């Protein structure tokens, strides 16, 4: 990867110096000032957004020799060779505790920090980290079957055998908040570090909601929220598939909201979103975060309805566009449409999972970064692999084929749903575009 952690030449990230500027009645108390994404489209939010706008999708088809050859599910795979680890002695020492997810987390975080103009060189006790990750995608799934085979013919007690044979530090590498410590190294944020994880795709909105509370209660001034959707193991994929079959096609007509969709398509990725307290922002504002809620109820439809109602309840949050979870699942797309449409009907709808698949724990953060990008560009990209919108989804108005202009400033409703038996958490948030004169890259200065 290039030394510029933002990744791509077309990325609007700039390491702009942070300076004190006058503030006047911001539309929200929380600003989004940085975003970063690693996806199958490559490094950077802009690269992914532009790929969506161009109607691309990035799935490795079954039968190929990609990350999981021989499995029936197309997967949007991140090219890990583009992701680098920072240089320097302390990072070299820390590297032995870092797994692939940590490397992705740090790379996404550095994109967001660079975009916000935060060099991360100084300790900042008013800054914090919230991670959205899971603990099931660790390296041991590669190692353990081989060790289990070896153990069948080994005289040592199992605990002693594992003590001797399991690679050093693998336990620590698998701890979700461990990733946050590396993000804290990159940001200089030392005020807090916590992982808000599990709950699959609503995890990203849960992490953002937690970060917003840290800011709104005055505990911190800025929080970097970072999510990682690591490559699922075969066991993980099989478990998802047992709950509801994963998609087996990644061709036109298999995307979210399509009449012929057959299941969510697996994806991978990492994303970072930097939230700052409005009265402490000194750099460019990309967007404003209004409500952000996650709720769990006895059933998912109730949770989704309550979450959407909660974020639309705040003044000034009438949405002009909807960035949907859009799992591509037969059941979830229907549940999402039938729940949200009565509350925010008539909106143009898009979603990312037909382009880069479902990165589960971090998918809501990827979508947030993309929604912010849409606000700065005043355009909504189309839904990937969507050919024929499902007439069974009511008056849904998905963006098909080409980008759709948005009014500036626009307001985006974003939704996120869990996926899994009896996993009933749903999240929603509202973002508005930045007010005021914009830069060449669509960023407003305050």
């Amino acid at each position, binding site marked *: 990867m290039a030394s510029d952690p933002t990744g791509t030449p077309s990325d609007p990230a700039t390491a702009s110096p942070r300076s004190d500027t006058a503030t006047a009645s911001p539309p929200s108390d929380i600003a989004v000032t940085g975003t970063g994404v690693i996806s199958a489209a490559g490094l950077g939010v802009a690269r992914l957004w532009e790929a969506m706008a161009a109607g691309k999708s990035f799935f490795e088809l079954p039968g190929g020799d990609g990350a999981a*050859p*021989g499995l*029936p599910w197309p997967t949007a795979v991140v090219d890990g060779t583009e992701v680098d680890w920072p240089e320097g002695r302390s990072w070299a020492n820390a590297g032995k505790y870092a797994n692939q997810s940590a490397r992705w987390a740090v790379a996404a975080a550095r994109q967001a920090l660079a975009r916000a103009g935060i060099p991360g060189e100084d300790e900042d006790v008013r800054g914090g*980290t919230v991670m959205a990750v899971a603990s*099931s995608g660790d390296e041991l799934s590669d190692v*353990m*079957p*081989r060790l*289990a*085979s*070896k153990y*069948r013919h080994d005289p040592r*007690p*199992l*605990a*002693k055998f*594992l*003590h001797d044979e*399991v690679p050093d*530090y*693998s*336990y620590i590498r698998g*701890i979700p*908040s*461990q990733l*946050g*410590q590396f993000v*804290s*190294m990159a940001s200089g*944020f*030392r*005020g*807090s*570090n*916590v*992982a*808000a994880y*599990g*709950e*699959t795709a609503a995890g990203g909105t849960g992490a953002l909601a937690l970060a917003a*509370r840290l800011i*709104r209660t005055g*505990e911190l001034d800025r929080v970097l929220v970072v999510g990682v959707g690591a490559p699922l193991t*075969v066991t*993980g994929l*099989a478990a*998802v598939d047992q709950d509801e079959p994963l998609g087996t096609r990644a061709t036109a007509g298999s995307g979210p909201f399509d009449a012929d969709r057959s299941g969510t398509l697996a994806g991978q990725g990492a994303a970072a979103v930097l939230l700052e307290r409005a009265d402490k922002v000194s750099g460019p504002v990309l967007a404003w975060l209004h409500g952000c*809620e*996650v*709720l*769990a*109820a*006895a059933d998912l439809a109730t*949770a989704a309805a309550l979450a959407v109602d909660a974020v639309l309840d705040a003044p000034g949050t009438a949405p002009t566009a909807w960035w949907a979870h859009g799992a591509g699942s037969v059941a979830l797309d229907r549940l999402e449409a039938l729940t949200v449409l009565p509350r925010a009907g008539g909106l143009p709808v898009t979603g990312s999972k037909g382009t880069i698949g479902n990165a589960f724990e971090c998918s809501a953060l990827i979508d947030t970064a993309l929604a912010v990008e849409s606000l700065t560009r005043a355009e909504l990209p189309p839904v990937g692999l969507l050919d024929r919108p499902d007439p069974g989804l009511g008056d849904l108005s998905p963006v098909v084929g080409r980008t759709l202009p948005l009014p500036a400033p626009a307001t985006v409703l974003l939704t996120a749903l869990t996926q*899994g*038996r*009896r*996993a*009933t*958490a749903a999240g929603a948030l509202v973002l508005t575009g930045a007010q005021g004169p914009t830069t060449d890259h669509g960023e407003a200065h305050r």
Partner: protein
Amino acid sequence: MSEAHAHDALEDIVITGMGVVTPVGGDVPSFWAANLEGRSGIVREERMDTTGLPCGWTAGLIPPEVREKVAADHGAPGRSWGDTLMHAAVEEALTDARLDARPAAAGPAALVYARVWPGPTGSDPQDYITHMADLGERYDTVGDDPAAVLAHLRTRNLPLEARDLSAYPAEIAERLGTAVVPVRLEATCAGGLRALAEAARLLRSGRARYAVVSAAVSRNTPYVLSQYGQLMALSRWKGDPALSSMPFDRRRTGMVINESAGALILETAEHAAGRGVDEHHAVIGGWGLAVDTSHMTAPRVEMVERVMRTALAEAGARPEDVDVVNAHGTSTRLNDVTEARALHRVFGERMAELPVSAVKSLTGHGSAASGVVETAASALTLCRGVVPPVPTCTEPDPACDVRTSLTPVERPVAGLLKNSFGFGGQYASMFLRRPAAPRRAASLG
């Protein structure tokens, strides 16, 4: 004002319900009694062969009779043991808080929880041994070809735990009869105290009417034992197992991992009063949280000092307002001396008289659950005016120089500082105040 008529400030965050399942007791009354008696729950780990491990031959295990009762009362098909433990603790806490009747759905509750994932097999050592045998047989049969592995997996029912998910939030929402703001946290061994802080934050933000905080750990498998063994973090004590966790003792050699769960009900004093609940277990005054990046596992004096000072400042308290410290006290060489040095920095000469308790001397270390379980002990310390002993600290380490006692110490306790730290540079400290109207012993549980 007499205590009987006193009230906490309406906006105060108070603890109104508590529940625990621990190696020394399956509910709060028995847990507290064991603490005062100095009765240990640490035993030799005989459920698996630990021969050859350099450390970690003992564990804080939930007694068989408690285990059977919890499983019978709170187990359910497909429910993991960790979730079962949390359900047991939550049920006791809800009853204690008089929230056992379904409340009106006048807004969401909060569910903040920390469940330490034991791995794909659950927490029973024999399950893990069976899992490894199955895995080895599979590898010898089909190798690591993904398609063949998938065909093998499709013959099995893969639980939600295979993805580190569970039905817990939905079940609690159903139990409470209301939607919940679900927050599942992970902050290594500081996770429990972090969960309490997050719940208090949710209440302060007005987003939830009350909060259920729960945490559970049960991970005494050959794998987890082997990994802590690699880190040389576990006790190497070869004598009486009950003595193997000895916080602040000069002979301490490491921690003892345990299985445990705790649950606390938090609400504003105003909300509690609205339900007719005026006696509280504790008032959450303030907290300090921080992350350090200088080392992945080793604690640092400056960071411990920082979070303790922040907790006091946020509570508007001074060091002299602290009557007792409920220490993290893990029994590792480094943690205890680091925590002690930070305590000396904050409390100075008062350390000669300041009582320090360390619950892990009896229970072992419950990772994220420890912060919740030990906060329950802290609340009881405040309400009862009794500081539990640290019975395994019979030879206090002069390098720590903290005032522990071998017997319970009766004294008025108006303010208490609770510490929790963890791998990955995690630091948390919380200042708790004695409520204006403390919960009376007779009304507990």
